[in-house]
């Protein structure tokens, strides 16, 4: 996924909302609500159909009687999807795929944050030969997303023996120019007085990093974590290239594999149950951590 730098809408989103009741006859028309509800309905329709489908038996769906209300097969379908895997080929069980996806997403998010924080700290708080070169090298990676260098990157993975490993799945994705740029931007706003005070107190750079910079960066880290978790969770091409071991299958890719070429004889009920399971973690992250999510999105753009 190419990462793009974030421009100004960020600043806009932080400003408080201007009063809109300047117009004495300002009233929200019912049409506004109608349009919004229609939008919500279009967003929810596919998920509702999937949710309902996951509670019926395979033949009901296979026949094409699309049910609109939940059936009684739910517990059984979810049990099969969770423990045995769906589809005709009994692929990887959902619990394992979900675990792989969570491990991958957390490692990618934490790794990106850790190495970006350190490199931004070095670039901002030190002067040393090659500083700008290092900064530009990191910056240029913005222009080299995995998607445009598929085969050579895979060949590098083969030479390093990283194919079919969790390390191979995560490490190549943890370099992030965006996170480094964001941290650099933020570090530049830390007042010089704090640095001077720390030096007077005899604190070295690492102590300063731990006791001053890290606590100040908490909100940035939380916001970035949400965005990067989604980035990691949603990876598709990279797992497709690097992993063909069933035990390392991620849920996004595993779900697509179950569909195959869309044969109507598929065990659609367990596939739909797996789809629901694959939706839950990232959607829960967005809904529960909405404040961080919005902040991270508008400030970093992925």
């Amino acid at each position, binding site marked *: 996924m190419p990462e793009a730098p974030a421009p100004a809408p960020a600043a806009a989103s932080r400003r408080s909302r*201007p009063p809109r009741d300047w117009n004495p006859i300002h009233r929200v028309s019912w049409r506004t609500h109608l349009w*919004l509800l229609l939008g919500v309905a279009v967003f929810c329709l596919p998920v509702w159909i*999937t949710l309902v489908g996951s509670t019926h038996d395979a033949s009901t769906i296979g026949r094409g009687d*699309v049910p609109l209300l939940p059936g009684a097969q739910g517990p059984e379908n979810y049990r099969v999807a969770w423990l045995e895997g769906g589809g005709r080929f009994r692929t990887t069980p959902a619990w394992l795929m979900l675990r792989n996806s969570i491990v991958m997403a957390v490692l990618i998010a934490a790794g990106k944050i850790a190495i970006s924080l350190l490199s931004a700290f070095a670039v901002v708080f030190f002067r040393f030969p090659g500083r700008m070169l290092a900064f530009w090298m990191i910056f240029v990676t913005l*222009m080299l997303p995995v998607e445009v260098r598929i*085969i*050579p990157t895979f060949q590098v993975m083969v030479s390093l023996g990283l194919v079919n490993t969790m390390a191979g799945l995560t490490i190549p994705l943890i370099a992030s120019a965006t996170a480094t740029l964001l941290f650099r931007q933020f570090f530049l706003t830390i007042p010089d007085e704090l640095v001077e005070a720390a030096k007077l107190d005899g604190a070295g750079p690492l102590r300063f990093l731990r006791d001053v910079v890290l606590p100040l960066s908490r909100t940035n880290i939380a916001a970035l974590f949400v965005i990067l978790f989604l980035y990691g969770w949603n990876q598709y091409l990279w797992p497709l290239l690097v992993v063909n071991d069933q035990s390392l299958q991620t849920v*996004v890719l595993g779900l697509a594999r179950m*569909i195959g070429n869309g044969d109507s004889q598929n065990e659609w009920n367990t596939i739909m149950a797996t789809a629901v399971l694959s939706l839950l973690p990232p959607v829960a992250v967005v809904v529960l951590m909405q404040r961080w999510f919005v902040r991270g999105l508008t400030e970093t753009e992925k």
Partner: protein
Amino acid sequence: MQRKAIFGGRALPYALLLPQLAVTLVFFFWPAGMALYQSVLREDPFGLAAEFVWFENFAEVLSDPGYLQSLRTTAVFAASVTLLSLSAGLFLAVQADKVRRGAGLYRTLLIWPYAVAPAVAAVLWLFLFHPEIGLLGRALNAAGIPWDYRLNGGQAMALVVLAASWKQVSYNFLFFLAGLHAIPASVLEAAAIDGAKPVRRFWTVVFPLLSPTTFFLLVVNLVYAFFDTFGVIHALTRGGPGNATETLIYRVYVDGVDNLDLGGSAAQSVILMAIVVALTAIQFRYIERRVHY
């Protein structure tokens, strides 16, 4: 921009930079260099012999009618996704901006699809538009419109566009809503006092003031449609039927992984890198300009 107060230390800054630079060198610069190198070589599929062929790979790629077709497919796909998701996002943001009670709830209900992976979005829409098991797919067939995205190229394109746009609407909605909130009430008030009707007010005052947001989103959506939609196409159509939905990224994958045409795939990678560089440059030039507003 530089800080005045800094720390001393010779080895420490390099040690702090090491992890990121190591990953960058090994997984970005090395493969990118290999792509450049392979793009001027011709190798046999087993990697046993290689011959230096200058720009023959590029000439071959660019004169291949299949590649040009895939370029057109990508243009149609990216333009449709961008237009659809931008206009839907803007429309919903304008509606949501009017609401005061329940605004937070609407926002939550409209942004969650952003969390859904493109490939999973594709699967969800497949459940709706499958010709035999899908609610809408069956309805279309029952209404006498023969619908099967697995056979009809135009329908396949419509389905991948829909699935790819769906989650991007949320993203655009969020940014447009932020942009609308940033428009000072006094400007709207002035337009209202001048007697401008709401629709006119929108097109002459609000929309121009949103143009920085719109332009930013235009670039982001194009980048998304170009590079992040591999999963949608791979999960739904595999570039088919025929090659009706084969975008540039999908083609690099097929040529490299399935057809083992390393030189051709590398040349395509280099062309794609040029496209990313161009898009990034546009984005940065535009940010530079904004600073001087």
